[in-house]
């Protein structure tokens, strides 16, 4: 599903150039659950941003479903993203001014789904995430675990082929963290490809494969299942 080859990303200031990704190559098959680990600053999040088409690489190739997407313009990236990719962030990134229902509904609005169908889909996913009873609450009225469940609901409501999770349990206690990981496992078992960046060895164990990075390069790759 994903194939990156010699991927490079640099950050430049006036005086210094920092290498975030240094000729990184690996592939992810459809239905896989891959965890990416490494110390802070090793390029994990940069990689996730590029995989999520939020950022451009400076060199190398990035193929999504066999198609080279690294040269896509903003509009094409946005199209590809909204139909294929769901995001889960460490800090949940829910919109404070929208209710739970409205937050989850948002990706459907951007993909042009009709209101009646939207309602059906949002309610189904909220039921599935066991957060239906909070549908009219605002994010700040929920606990961290509940907020992340909403974020996961939002990420999957569009049935994306790929979910990118950036330390999804980083802001949660262990009970809530485990619940979120269970949700991701369920999704993966239902066929969704998941790439997760994490510092937690515990969470990484849920995945099929762990890629460890250092200074923008892949150092090891462990296959767990």
């Amino acid at each position, binding site marked *: 599903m994903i194939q990156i080859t010699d991927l490079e990303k640099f950050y430049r200031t006036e005086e210094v150039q920092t290498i975030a990704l240094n000729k990184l190559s690996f592939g992810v098959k459809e239905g896989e659950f891959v965890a990416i680990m490494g110390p802070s600053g090793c390029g994990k999040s940069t990689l996730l941003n590029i995989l999520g088409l939020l950022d451009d690489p400076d060199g190398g190739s990035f193929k999504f479903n066999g198609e080279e997407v690294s040269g896509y313009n903003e509009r094409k990236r946005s199209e590809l*993203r909204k*139909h294929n990719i769901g995001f889960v962030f460490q800090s949940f990134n829910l919109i404070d001014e929208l209710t739970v229902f409205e937050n989850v509904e948002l990706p459907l*609005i*951007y993909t042009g789904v009709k209101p009646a169908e939207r309602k059906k889909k949002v309610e189904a996913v909220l039921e599935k995430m066991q957060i239906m009873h909070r549908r009219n609450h605002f994010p700040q009225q929920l606990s961290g675990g509940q907020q992340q469940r909403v974020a996961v609901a939002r990420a999957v409501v569009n049935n994306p082929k790929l979910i990118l999770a950036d330390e999804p349990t980083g802001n949660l206690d262990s009970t809530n963290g485990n619940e979120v990981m269970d949700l991701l496992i369920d999704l993966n078992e239902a066929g969704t490809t998941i790439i997760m960046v994490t510092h937690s060895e515990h969470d990484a164990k849920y995945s099929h494969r762990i890629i460890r990075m250092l200074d923008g390069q892949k150092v090891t790759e462990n296959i767990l299942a």
Partner: protein
Amino acid sequence: MIKNYFKIAWRNIVKHKVFSFINVIGLTIGLSASFVIGLMIYYDYTFDNFHKDGDRIYRIVTDFKESEGEFYNSGVTLALKGAIEENSNFEATSEFYRERPMKVENRASDLEFKLPKFVIFADQDYFKIFDYKFIAGDNVKALHNPNEVILTKERALKYFPNTEVSEIIGKTLVYNDSVNTKVTGIVENFKGRTDIVFQEFISYPTLLQTRLRENIIKKNWNNTNSNSQLFVKLKANADLASIKSRFKELATEHADEQDIKYGQERIFQLQPLEDIHFNENYGIYDWTNGQASKSLLQNLVFVALFLLLLGCINFINLNTAQATQRAKEIGIRKTLGSTRKQLMGQFMGETFLLVIISAVLSLLLSRWLITVFSDFVPAGLSFELFKAPIVVVGVIILLVLVTILSGFYPAIVLSKFNTVSVLKNHLGVGDKKVGLRKFLTVFQFTIAQVFIIATLLVGKQINYLLSKDMGFKTDAIVSVYKPIEEGSLEKIELYAEKLTSIPEIKSISLGGPPPASQSSNITDMRRMIDDEEIYGDMQLLAGDTKYLDLFEIELLAGRVYRNDTVRELVINEAARKYFRFKSPEDAIGKTLLYEKEYLPIVGVTGDFHQSSLRSDIRPMTLRGDWYRGMWTYFQATHISLKSDSPENLKNSLAKIENVYKDVYPESDMRLEFVDEAVERFYKREKKISKLLNWSTGLSILISCLGLLGLVIYTTNRRVKEIGVRKVLGASLLQINTLLCKEFLILVAIAFIVASPIAWYGINNWLQDFAYKTNISFWVFLNSGCAMILFALIVISAKTLQAANANPVDSLRSE
């Protein structure tokens, strides 16, 4: 999606109450001003737009070019119509004469109406040019014969109450006791707004039965009277150039010898119908509500524009300053698939919602503004005009424009956020726009500062005008005018005689208007020095022998004329200098040629102002009442009171009115205080001052609110810095200074920019006045200090609160 946008917009408005309030207030003020001023423009520009072929209807007017300048007359010589009616460029030419009858009677019903307004003697082509709807009578033969009259429905029902319109035809109206007319037609009053306000149309040949008979028969080429009006309707293919050249030929052919000698030129002009409403040179027919002024409308448009701009600037400033707070939402939306276009649409939608809220408030406010600005708003203008489709479209366009002006830039800034950066909380966008916000704040305060300086200087000039010595006594003098329809001198003399018994009165004088008035009577006089002739215009002032004494006008040499009818002149210093008499004494005994007669100068007075201080003092002569056999110049009884204490004034006026009722039992007393009449010269200036006061207040309000918004934002951002500084020992004053400094610098820059702009504007405005106040340095200094003080109060309200906060609270949240 739209619903979602509006939902989030509404929640944002509610969440950021202070900023929303500031935005809404600014936009509401700007929009209210724009609505009211827009209505005024619509009102004034839709006069006479309903006439059939209105674009081909013109009034012919006369301009006079002389060495002293250009003079304008809305009338033409009575001879002109005959000279142009055969011209192939005209479809119709119609002349009419405005003559207000003393009275009109419906004798059959024993009804009498005094001084009916809007009566004209019109020729048969009048109804070919103006398309009235006849509801009774015949418009084919209308006004062909003498002694016919056509009435509007309104007037007909007034003269013939409780009578069917069709029954009024054939009835008789008698004008001025002797002119019998038969009603031959009744027309609908025009439905649209119009300056063609006439209500009674007497057939033109009937003029031969009035005092104007001689003039009508003679049709003198060299007599131009503004009552003699000439309208034409051009053919569709008319050649304007050829009309102009024909007009020029006629003016040259019939030029007066004197005019040629003194280089005076007469020009006949075509004035488009639509121009009548605005052109102050020629005037309108109904002065009740004053004439519309394009320059006033222009000034008002500027005021509205500035206020609207100030509101938009607040919006831009606060939204770009707050941008970082919206960054997360933008990042998420982009991640979830929103395009930049969609985000811009969302922010523009939010702006539009805020503009709509402001517009609704503005509509409510406009009703009130129409009352507050009644001095500027035409009397016929009502809130109902908002229902006109074109006004509705105009309002929508304005709202869209304001949305774009306020929302476009913040929308660009917000939608430009880099998704990765905002999700990582690496933001700097709000700060990058600081330069622009500073510029806009300076711009706002420049406008407010210009308004403040202008207000102070206009106020100073008005003070100067009102307090400057007019050169004659103005207080405790009242002028009582005899009834217009009353021609007899005996009665006014009787009135003056009876007044002498009132002990509160100091002195009484009969005369024309007071020394300074709106009316002027000008004639030409000459002086011969050997072979050289000095020729010039003289203002004429009529008064009895006590006139100078009553108004305390200083006599520099000579005396007043011996009695009220002797042909002697008392001139002023300006006339003495103009006619080159070496000294006041030198003028005494010399003569001036006036109406083919050499009249002796018996006295020379000091100069005094004859009108507003806009004009210079002109050569003037005081004269008696020579023509009292035929008519009298003495229209007014000037009464000097011993004291103008309120109690005395009340008593005296009651007694003066009682005497008036004795002498003129059927008339209401018309009286004017001289000092109030002088004040009225400056009605226009007072209007400008009122407008400026409001504009200044509102612009300060909007600008300071905007500043407050920025200060709140900046202070909130620096709350940790303030905490650290306090922990390190900074005093309240030091912190306040730190926070205030950057804003006060902006206000100070605005002052530097505003000063020359205000100086230039006011200096230009003052050029209209012959006598003007100084543009003093202290005015600028005061206004600058005032603005800085305002800003300091506004800023300190927030910064002191921040500086006073316990640093532990702000640092704990780290």
